[in-house]
């Protein structure tokens, strides 16, 4: 009961500080929006195409490129503009179709197209897509050339017939089955991944800020005065922690509901998602109470809180996906699981990607509960030592 009194007072003081409202509720949503828009899962590579207007075969090649789902074709007027765009990262690659593309093909002479891309996997992937489109066009061209060589029709007439024939041939679909765990970003919506990672990052960061509040309570002498009343050290710490836990929980729910309503983020089973959030908020508030009992200077604790908050978030997969760690080094992936963030993300992945049940995430929840228990126990022990020594 006394813990609730202390928690309620903390909440009242927290809400009175208008700055908290921005950092707890508005800032995370803005970040989800920015990160989701920039790095969201629905990502299409931007390919600049530079060509002269009026060439039917060049236009046909562009149409084939536009038909590729993962490529956004951007028509660029000059080679210079395309090169500049690729250099600046505004475009992933550029394709230069020569002005004599149609003429050369019709004449049966070799023709070169130039492909320019940024280094990296994206460029290789785009190159394969372009080669595939050119190959498709080449099949039709060869058929037309064959008809012409056999004297059945002129090249132009044969090309029209081959084009119609291509349209009438059904596509061959390739069913892809991947073995092992899938790289999950592709399965997530544009904002899903950023919303989950930002949720965990901010809930933990906001919680850690509570350490400064506990230190301030100690520095003001209010903490000592509280234990001079018939109130135990445990109740004081649970009250301080519970206030911060409520702030973290409300912030987390706000992010979950807000991103669901505004960005359509899929959080999986809402009850399970709330359960993960609840336990993660407990972990965060427990860590804050431990820091608040270890440090005696709130500025020092605030600085360390940001450092720990961002550091653990980065290590735990809130900035770079855990699957990337796994690709780079299994050891790094294992180290990431020192953090509660990694377990929280695993739990979210399970309910969002695999429709996981409570049984599927029980281990993750138990680990998060373990973190909270250890943090709170250490904090109570430490605070008792600090206040009564």
């Amino acid at each position, binding site marked *: 009961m006394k813990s609730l009194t202390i928690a309620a007072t903390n909440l009242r003081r927290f809400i009175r500080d208008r700055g908290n409202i921005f950092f707890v509720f508005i800032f995370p949503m803005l970040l989800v929006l920015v990160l989701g828009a920039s790095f969201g899962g629905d990502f299409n590579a931007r390919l600049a195409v530079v060509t002269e207007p009026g060439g039917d075969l060049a236009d046909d090649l562009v149409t084939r490129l536009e038909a590729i789902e993962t490529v956004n074709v951007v028509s660029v007027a000059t080679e210079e503009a395309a090169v500049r765009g690729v250099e600046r990262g505004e475009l992933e690659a550029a394709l230069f179709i020569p002005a004599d593309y149609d003429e050369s093909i019709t004449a049966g002479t070799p023709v070169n197209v130039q492909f320019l891309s940024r280094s990296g996997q994206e460029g290789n992937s785009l190159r394969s897509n372009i080669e595939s489109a050119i190959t498709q066009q080449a099949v039709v061209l060869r058929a037309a050339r064959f008809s012409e060589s056999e004297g059945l029709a002129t090249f132009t007439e044969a090309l029209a017939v081959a084009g119609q024939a291509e349209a009438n041939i059904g596509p061959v679909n390739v069913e892809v089955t991947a073995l092992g765990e899938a790289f999950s970003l592709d399965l997530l919506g544009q904002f899903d991944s950023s919303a989950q990672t930002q949720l965990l990052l901010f809930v933990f960061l906001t919680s850690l800020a509570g350490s400064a509040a506990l230190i301030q309570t100690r520095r003001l002498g209010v903490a000592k005065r509280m234990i*001079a009343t018939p109130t135990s050290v445990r109740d004081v710490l649970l009250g301080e922690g519970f206030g911060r836990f409520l702030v973290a929980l409300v912030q987390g729910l706000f992010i979950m509901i807000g991103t669901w309503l505004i960005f359509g983020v899929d959080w999986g089973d809402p009850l399970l998602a709330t359960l993960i959030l609840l336990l993660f908020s407990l972990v965060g508030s427990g860590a804050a109470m431990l820091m608040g009992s270890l440090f005696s200077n709130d500025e020092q604790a605030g600085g360390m809180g940001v450092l720990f908050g961002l550091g653990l978030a980065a290590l735990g997969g809130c900035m770079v996906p855990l699957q990337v760690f796994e690709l780079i080094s299994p050891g790094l992936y294992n180290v990431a699981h020192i953090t509660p963030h990694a377990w929280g993300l695993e739990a979210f992945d399970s309910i969002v990607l695999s429709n996981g049940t409570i049984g599927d995430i029980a281990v993750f929840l138990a680990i998060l509960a373990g973190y909270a228990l250890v943090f709170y126990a250490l904090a109570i022990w430490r605070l008792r030592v600090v206040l009564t020594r």
Partner: protein
Amino acid sequence: MAQPTLDCRGLRKVFGDLVAVDDVGFHIDAGETYGLLGPNGAGKTTSISMISGLLKRDGGSITVDGEEMTTINLAAKALIGLVPQDIAVYPDLTARENLVFFGKLYGMSGKALQSRVDEVLEIIGLADRAGDRSDDFSGGMKRRLNIGIGLLHKPNLLILDEPTVGVDPQSRNAILESVEQLSSAGMAVLYTTHYMEEAERLCDRVGIIDHGVIKAEGTRRELVQMVGEHDRIRLETTSGGLQSAVAALSELPSVVEAGAGDGLIELLVTEAGEHLTKILSIVTEAGVAVAGVDIDEPNLESVFLHLTGRALRD
């Protein structure tokens, strides 16, 4: 014999190599104000921290109304009201919110709490500022709020640790008056200060503490007598034979020492107030005209100086 409200014996606290408090013991009865007088660093706050259950003691015993005080005995803590030296309130809460918050920690609730908060606001003179944040208060008002929190649950023992440090004379007087009223109402009060005049005004008994040890304890008069200090009477004269007057005064049993010079007669006596009439009568009979009388009674400052060899504010 009635059980004292506070009974502490043989208190000891050591921080590393430093013995902060050593064999401190005293008791306080209901309605009595006990002063712990000593300079900064004498061990007053350490003693109070042990008595209020904030600090583990390394030795000795403490009981409040028969209940043993420890850092975890909440029943004993419910019997005391602590007013710490630092202003321990939330600056961003109003006076009323601070009082309600601590009232709940003392186990109060509902209408009883609201009613008591109103009473305390009247006692500390902040009823008209109840809705203002405490960081908008003057130093004196903050001190009064600090005291008000300690009074909320009508404790059997009120502990005030240097409650007037840094306050203006008006607020200081208001605080001292409040303490006098609480003591008159039957509350036992433990009051620490390094202001001699506060201890003399408020305290029925005083313990003089220095370097963690109680050097002496008793009423002001007992302490003065204990150290053999005497009242000093200075008579300013205009005419007459000073030597014959001094000779006559020296015969009085209450006069310990007598001397004259430059138109002044100086006497060291016991209980100056009681014997002044007799002294003036003898001087007049000796043909000396007295123009002025100055009596200097020994105070706790001089007692402290005598006991410790240093002044209270050193």
